[in-house]
């Protein structure tokens, strides 16, 4: 009666962001069958619209093993994806605007010394000499020479294309409407078009992953956040580093064409799927930008945008096995900082799918850190076996 296509495979993935797509690629490299369902276009959400910061510096210690793993993947990008995605190890410089900022950068360097980030503290005097373009509020900072930046619009779709070339079945414009588990197999259905049956399911649905988790009785305090982005017209090239500020507020980088990409502040949600910048945030960003980089005082903003990213209260992701449903693994909630670690999160999910455990420590990201499970919200998932 119905012409729905049924597909059996080893692993089903919901979400074609950088996490889901890199998991698909890693799974193919392990020789497992993969079907990825993306409701829109792969890499068109957070993963494709973010600032493009590829940095380890400043991350909590819990994330550094993952970030280091990701760093190695980023280093192999052309080989992996067939494109460099404009990834460059330009250096990431974290600015201190006070002595106490400087002290906390120093503490961070000491704390992260096990991780080989190669952080170098730069004094005010040296900064003046080396970066005459930097505004006078910077009293120093910390440089991570091997951190860098990339073009998310290119990188994230490229992960999905690479996965596809490696044999993953990628279904774009396939929204997952229903998921169920019969104790052994998952059923993932997209409208009347496709039903994927697989013993393993990866929930990589970004800011929307909470709805999937809920179907398996896992309620999470996941909320959406909307970082503000703006870009200037091209100006003569003056800056190689990607800049951040200790304590947050603003970050910026200059791309090869000369445009500056800036971020900072929070935007507004138009609906569950779409977001836009906020006028006050643009104003604040503009003031901070000129203060940080006086060269920008005559520049124009030509475009602004935002995106929708998932945040958990402790700003750590959920990465690991479901606690209700064997074979289900989550990877979401990257709190505005998942672009750099995304490819490593993908590899970890692939390992979990194959072996049930990962070679990178992920205990800090266990779903168990939240409240106990509730009743499954969906009857279709009611067969799920709590473990």
């Amino acid at each position, binding site marked *: 009666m119905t012409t729905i296509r049924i597909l059996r495979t080893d692993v089903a993935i919901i979400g074609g962001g950088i996490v889901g797509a890199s998991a698909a690629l890693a799974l193919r490299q392990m020789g497992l069958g993969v079907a990825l369902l993306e409701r829109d276009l792969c890499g068109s959400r957070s993963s494709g619209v973010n600032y493009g910061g590829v940095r380890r510096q400043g991350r909590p210690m819990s994330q550094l093993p993952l970030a280091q793993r990701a760093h190695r993947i980023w280093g192999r990008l052309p080989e992996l994806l067939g494109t460099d995605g404009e990834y460059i190890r330009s250096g990431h410089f974290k600015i201190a605007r006070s002595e106490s900022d400087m002290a906390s950068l120093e503490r961070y360097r000491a704390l992260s010394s096990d991780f080989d980030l190669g952080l170098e503290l730069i004094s005010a005097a040296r900064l003046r000499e080396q970066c005459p373009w930097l505004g006078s509020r910077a009293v120093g900072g910390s440089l991570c020479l091997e951190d860098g930046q990339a073009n998310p619009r290119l990188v994230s779709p490229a992960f999905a294309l690479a996965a596809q070339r490696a044999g993953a079945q990628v279904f774009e414009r396939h929204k997952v409407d229903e998921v169920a588990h019969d104790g052994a197999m998952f059923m993932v259905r997209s409208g009347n078009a496709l039903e994927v049956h697989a013993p393993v399911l990866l929930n990589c649905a970004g800011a929307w992953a909470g709805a999937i988790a809920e179907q398996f009785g896992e309620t999470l305090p996941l909320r959406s956040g909307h970082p503000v982005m703006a870009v200037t017209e091209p100006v003569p090239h003056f800056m190689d580093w990607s800049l951040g500020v200790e304590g947050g507020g603003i970050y910026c980088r200059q791309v090869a064409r000369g445009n500056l990409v800036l971020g900072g502040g929070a935007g507004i949600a138009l609906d569950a799927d779409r977001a836009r910048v906020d006028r006050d945030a643009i104003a604040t960003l503009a003031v901070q930008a000129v203060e940080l980089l006086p060269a920008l005082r005559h520049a124009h903003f030509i*475009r602004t945008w935002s995106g929708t990213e998932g945040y958990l209260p402790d700003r750590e992701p959920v990465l690991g096995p479901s606690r209700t449903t064997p074979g289900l693994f989550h990877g979401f909630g990257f709190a505005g900082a998942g672009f750099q670690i995304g490819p490593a999160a993908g590899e970890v999910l692939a390992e979990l799918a194959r072996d049930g455990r990962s070679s990178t420590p992920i205990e800090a990201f266990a779903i168990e850190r939240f409240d106990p499970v509730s009743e499954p919200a969906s009857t279709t998932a009611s067969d799920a076996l709590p473990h």
Partner: protein
Amino acid sequence: MTTTTTANELRPVIVGAGPAGVRAAQTLVAHGLRPVVIDEAPRAGGQIYRRPPTDLAQRTARTLYGFESKRADAVHEAFDALQGRIDHHPDSLVWNAQGQQLDVLHNPTRSTRRVPYSHLIVATGATDRVLPVPGWTLPGVYTLGGAQVALKFQGCAIGQRVVFMGTGPLLYLVAYQYAKAGVAVAAVLDTARLADQLAATPAMLTQPAVFAKGVYYVGWLRAHGVALHSGVRPLRVLGDEQQGRVTGVAWHDGHEERTLACDAIGFGYALRSETQLADLLGCRFDYAPMHRAHLPVRNAAGRTSVEGVYLAGDGAGIMGADAAEWAGERAALALLADSGMAIDTARATALEHRIDRLTTFRRGLERAFPLPQDWAAHAPDDLVVCRCENVTAGTLRQTIAVNGADEMNRLKALSRVGMGRCQGRMCGAAAAEILAHATGQSVQQVGRLRGQAPIKPIPIRLVPCTEGDA
């Protein structure tokens, strides 16, 4: 707003002081309201009735607007008569809309303020629709509208010996205006075929006076020895590399390649609506086959999908200046009715009928001056489509073939087309043609670029103004 609202509580804002915006303002004032009128231009009049700066106003309306001078005078006088009864913000760009407030950049002072509104009439008009030709980035190449603005606003010509090319009603009009102003018009090169024009005649005759004007321009040009070629395919703008300027143009006339010397070119393929504000306001868009574009949806009265937001004039589909006046008045009546005020419903119906009758004529125009369907097929790979980001037709095709881009926003993300200063307002139509052609889809299927603030570039160092004191 509910029916209990009084006139004093309403804060209607009109964006655009062209024929649509002016008539909307006049109608609101006649009903006792005090609208805010915001326009980027220093003086009201819009595109067609653009007024030169006061210190340059030595040319009479008759020389500036020709047959349109009476209408121009009428619109200008209507606007001037509103002084003191509206709040006019000239030189003011609406660059963002958020939460019932517009963000407005006052250009001379680079200051920005928020203008709250209870109701909004969007009458943002149109700009040229561009299909690039190799060499179009050379100095000396202008759009038809740009060429006309130079003449109307600044009182100067784009060159001494000018070729006008492309298609659309503006093609012959601007050529005529230039020739009348004493500029040597070397040729008019129309991509439409005579057969197109003949086939469209019955529809065009539904507006005999307008049709007659068009016939008159063509006849006048011919009588004054201007070469008129139809059914051409523009090949390239010839340029002097040293001087970096136009030296001529090459085209195909159906049989052979031909060239002609000139020092400036005005080109364009009719107009495209300015829709970003409607987009930022959240208006629903739909594909409009007659306009070959995705446009904000409005009903016959000008109501959009967003409560309290109305559209009038060319900003929601190119219908011309007369229809813009009627649509402006009609939208204002809708706003008044929605606010619980008594309006002349017979007048409202009559306006709708007039606009409706014009639609047949508009179809005729599209038929007479169709967008060349084979443009994308002939666009060479090294043709720059997006000037801001220097994206060529070849890059677009490559992006489509290699990365599988099949939709406008994906094409933008992967190729940078439409990412520069103009945000796709100039290159969007051409990029959509290339994408549709390369993927075998319709222009409807490839979708449209999503709008983002700012509508036009804004200085990073904006001076904030006291809030809300519009």
